[in-house]
């Protein structure tokens, strides 16, 4: 069963004093979209964050996710690809609902560091980044900036109304809160079913 925070809209609000803006902090598995002047903040290890906005209206958002392990048959239809596509679609659908035009979307991507060492997870970051790059290429959404891979965690702050993103490299530590949250998220994904409900009306 998925944790209640997975596939959810982020709810941890705070004051981003450095920008003098309301802020929201995204945990692994969450996403957030806004039309307001806000700071969207997350800390990434091996996970990736896609920051997407409508260049004209400024409505924009961010997600924070990683692909589950494994594959079942055709790579394009495997669990990781279907889950990643779903995570991206939640973000993009929310953007469209809030008035974004798909043709004006631009993306910035971050994360995918080689951070979860010692868990046979050295390829986790690379897989996540490869997926996101492939997704945006297929969807025809241009990537205007990226800071991915390498071997350090990152704190990312995204301002959708301007499109600016600020990245701070963090010291690698296996004991901090962000690392624990990502490991817990990965563990939850292992047992997660990638398939939604079906209801026939006849």
């Amino acid at each position: 069963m998925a944790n209640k925070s997975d596939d959810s809209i982020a709810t941890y609000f705070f004051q981003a004093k450095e920008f003098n803006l309301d802020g929201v902090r995204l945990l692994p598995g969450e996403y957030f979209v806004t039309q307001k002047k806000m700071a969207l903040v997350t800390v990434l290890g091996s996970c990736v964050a896609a920051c997407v906005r409508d260049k004209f209206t400024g409505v924009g958002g961010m997600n924070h996710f990683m692909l589950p392990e494994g594959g079942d048959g055709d790579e394009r239809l495997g669990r990781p690809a279907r889950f990643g596509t779903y995570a991206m679609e939640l973000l993009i659908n929310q953007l469209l609902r809030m008035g974004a035009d798909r043709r004006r979307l631009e993306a910035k991507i971050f994360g995918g560091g080689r951070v979860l060492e010692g868990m046979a997870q050295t390829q986790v970051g690379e897989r996540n980044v490869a997926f996101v790059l492939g997704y945006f290429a297929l969807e025809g959404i241009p990537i205007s900036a990226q800071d991915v891979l390498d071997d350090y965690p990152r704190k990312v702050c995204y301002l959708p109304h301007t499109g600016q993103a600020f990245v701070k490299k963090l010291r690698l530590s296996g004991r901090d809160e962000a690392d624990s949250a990502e490991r817990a998220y990965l563990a939850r994904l292992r047992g997660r079913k990638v398939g939604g409900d079906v209801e026939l009306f006849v």
Partner: protein
Amino acid sequence: MSKSILAVDDSTTIRQMVSLTLKSAGYEVTEAVDGQDGLAKAKGRSFNLVLTDQNMPRMDGLSLVKSLRGLPEYKTAPILMLTTESSDEMKSKGRAAGATGWLVKPFDPPRLLEVVRKVLG
């Protein structure tokens, strides 16, 4: 002769996944990029099944279902929604619009084929 399916979704990734799944089971698949494109393609022929997303530019899935139900060739044809929308409210709207069923993403290929076979009889 293989049955024909119209797959409507604004995401290229999803269209490819759905097409791959359906073609692997022998169905003939035509893709449309949104409701308006789907309606135009549906008018030109009589598909055995329409599978559509909800949130799309220009025309959403529910509007497409309503428009199709107004056409003689789609009065009784199965129309399935495949969407991230999972609320009871949206499902009720789908039912009222004339949808045959509601599949919540992420889709599971074997489950999708099972439902498609069921509604196609």
